[in-house]
């Protein structure tokens, strides 16, 4: 790759990345979001965050890995239960991470 190509790659990637992120913000003062869409968008955080971590927690390179021998699954399940029971974010994170790393250590993986 020539330097010019590399510069163009950076430029092109910047334009599409920043474009996607900023287009609505830039026109925010005149954008009117209809009420139904506003209500639907409230489901974005839970939907996207779940969709990011579910494959990490429940699958591995071989497919579904819902097993008590899978630290990712057990750690995530622990976090979920602790989160639902105590509703304390820091506790949820700490207990989950602790369980995950203890299990990794124990399995020697």
């Amino acid at each position, binding site marked *: 790759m020539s330097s010019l190509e590399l510069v163009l790659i950076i430029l092109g990637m910047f334009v599409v990345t920043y474009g996607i992120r900023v287009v609505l913000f830039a026109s925010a003062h005149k954008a009117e979001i209809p009420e139904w869409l506003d209500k639907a968008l409230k489901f974005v955080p839970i*939907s996207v965050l779940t969709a990011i971590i579910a494959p990490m927690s429940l699958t591995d390179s071989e497919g579904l890995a819902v097993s008590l021998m899978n630290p990712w699954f057990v750690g995530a399940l622990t976090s979920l239960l602790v989160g639902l029971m105590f509703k304390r*974010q820091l506790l949820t994170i700490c207990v989950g991470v602790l369980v995950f790393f203890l299990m990794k250590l124990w399995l020697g993986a």
Partner: protein
Amino acid sequence: MNAFQNAQRGALASLPMIVGGLPFGLLFGSLAAANDLSIWFAIAMSSIVFAGSAQFVALGLIAADAPLWVIVLTTFVVNLRHILYAADMLRFVKHLPLKLRLIMGFGLIDETYAAVRPMYDMGSADRSNGHQVYLGSFLSFYLMWNITTVIGALAGEYIPGISEWGLEFAMVATFIGIITPYLKSVPYWGAFAVALVASILLKDMPNHLGLIVSTLLAVVIGYSLDRLSGANKKGATTNV
């Protein structure tokens, strides 16, 4: 609370994800070096493009000698989810000055959206101070991402097995910590269940498309359940 304290709260809320992101920044820098790309290229990517997963995809495409338009188009698809974040954040930023919104747009990454957006729901951020919390999250993540990129590129080779350490689990646990307070009503449980099942079924779609499709599906289900329960409660007379 002053602006600095608000920014601190934003940074603090992002801390687990910053830790979770460390290996990726290092890995990105070292992978760029391993592909014989100059350190300046790696730094330009992280500081100008600032798009975690798209940066990795681009490295792979450069290594495969893909043409420019393929790299740019793939970046577009990989980052498409950010438009959903922007649409969802709009109600909290539309009163802010344009300059500030242009800066905030640059920092609209998964981690900052994940850390800051729920704070509006939980009452720890509002329209008057949310942008300060947001900037604290964005800047601390930006700093980490660029520093680790430089370190990784200087180290020049793989940091042995760092991707196997499982530091990303910090992100998984954080996201769960963010999700659980929402799980109080049927519509949110519905969105959760659909996102979970769909993202696993669609995980092999190229370019993170599975992520976008399952997110949209979950949003539609959550919204439909919300309307149904609203209709039951209020009776058929309301027309919202």
